[in-house]
């Protein structure tokens, strides 16, 4: 199963993703530079938009990448129900494209945050969190614009439709303001679309995919993603 790992100018997490996915049985991750346009996605069964600083984060994080030609192909696959993950800058690109609601604003602290955080996985299952429901996981974050914001209506539907699989929390799994690293409303760290095939999250599962990295909590998300294709 072919997974297109997109690389825009300024993307810098593509190798981490490729390596993490390669270790999962059945996954065939291929690097697709965005300049390939629609042709780059012809064989793709799924897409990962990795983190980094596409187009130097100029304009707004993810904004310039969100209007590249290749994103039309991303939209087509999204509509077909193919699984798509956007991590960090990838999440920002997905919101700028409008495939996920809301926007990622500058961190409340006005600082770049780079640290390990705990996440509460929602008890409601999604294709990406199968087997992890209700658990507390540990993943790293590294971003300047991870402050998730959306309007009241959107917030209500995200919560009512159980579309927030990940929230920042403490080690015990309590979702509280003290463990909100960036000011996101309701401690939101990741969301899915209504159809359930698109996940956007600020934390980096690929950086918690081997014991040597300090955590293997992230690999389950990627395994679920691969399983969703097969």
């Amino acid at each position: 199963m072919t997974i297109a790992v997109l690389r825009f100018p300024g993307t810098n997490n593509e190798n981490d993703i490729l390596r993490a996915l390669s270790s999962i049985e059945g996954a065939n991750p291929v690097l697709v530079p965005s300049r390939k346009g629609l042709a780059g996605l012809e064989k793709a069964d799924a897409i990962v938009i990795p983190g980094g600083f596409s187009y130097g984060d100029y304009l707004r994080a993810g904004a310039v990448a969100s209007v590249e030609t290749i994103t039309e192909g991303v939209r087509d696959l999204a509509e077909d129900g193919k699984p798509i993950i956007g991590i960090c800058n990838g999440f920002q690109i997905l919101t700028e494209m409008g495939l996920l609601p809301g926007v990622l604003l500058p961190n409340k602290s006005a600082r770049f945050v780079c640290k390990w955080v705990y996440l509460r996985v929602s008890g409601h299952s999604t294709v990406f969190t199968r087997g992890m429901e209700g658990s507390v996981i540990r993943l790293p974050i590294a971003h300047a614009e991870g402050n998730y914001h959306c309007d009241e209506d959107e917030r209500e539907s995200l919560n009512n439709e159980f579309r927030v699989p990940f929230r920042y929390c403490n080690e015990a799994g309590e979702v509280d303001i003290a463990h909100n690293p960036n000011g996101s409303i309701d401690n939101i760290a990741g969301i899915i679309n209504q159809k359930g095939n698109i996940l956007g999250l600020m934390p980096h599962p690929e950086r918690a995919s081997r014991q040597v990295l300090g955590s293997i909590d992230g690999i389950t998300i990627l395994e679920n993603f691969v399983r969703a294709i097969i």
Partner: protein
Amino acid sequence: MDLIQEGKVKRVLQDPDSAERVIIEFTDAVTAGDGAKKEEFSGKGNVATEMSHYLFGYLEGKGIDTHYVKKLSSNQLLCKKVTIFPVEVVCRNIAAGSFCRRYGTEKGTPFPEPLVEFFLKDDEYHDPLITADAIIRLGLAKRDELEFMKSVTLSTNYYLGEILKQRELILVDFKLEFGKTKKELIVLADELSPDSMRIWDSNTTSMDKDVFREDKGDLIGAYNKVFEEIKKAKPQDVEQRTESIQVIVEPKSGIKNPPGEVTKKALGRLGFAEVEEVRVGKVFVITLKRPLTTEILNHLAIMNLKLLSNPISETNKVRIE
């Protein structure tokens, strides 16, 4: 053909073939001082028609939206039907006419940069000078419409001035009128002839309606001379001028703005205790290849929606200057 309006020197007739078009017929009348002085000059209607036809075509070629469609006869132009703004836009490069009477400035004093003035179209009050704010308060035009008209007037000044300069003629000042089409396009309307502009030759001899106003000789001769000269000019040699506009993007109220907050704190550390709040946004300075048109303004709205601003967290406005 139905008469829509009868002016002092023009008639506006309904185009029998299209409800969205009119026929503008130029008469031989020449008036000055609000019609206090009026005379007929044979051939004046024709030269005003010919020149308007030529200059509107020239300006259209440079990207300015006008009401002009085509010439129908020696004294008739087919034009888009517009609702005229009741405001005359005057652009001055050199002091003359009412400007000198108003401020006692010596005629012929050049301005360091072009001056745009608005006059209320109202015969009863003798077309008084009016400020932009008064126009807005009276509901005669909106602020962005006035900014737009001013921008197009300055573009027109450049293109008319350059083509006259090629023939060693000087564009002293001119008057424009603007109208809005049914499709809400704001276009240059009325006429473009020595009736509505002051043109001097290199000896500062008037080649325009001042010949009539000041009884200085052969009016039609002067008009024809100007037109002959303009026809000898090379429009393709007039360089396309770029126009600059700004798009200002601000964080919506209620959205936290950390960059503004840290800036405020830093200002506080510098001792500026009077600062209540700072919000940091963005300014895009966009240089356009051609004069501003309603279509370009519509494009800017789409640019904002698609890329320049995020409607969830930001507001935007276009500033024409």
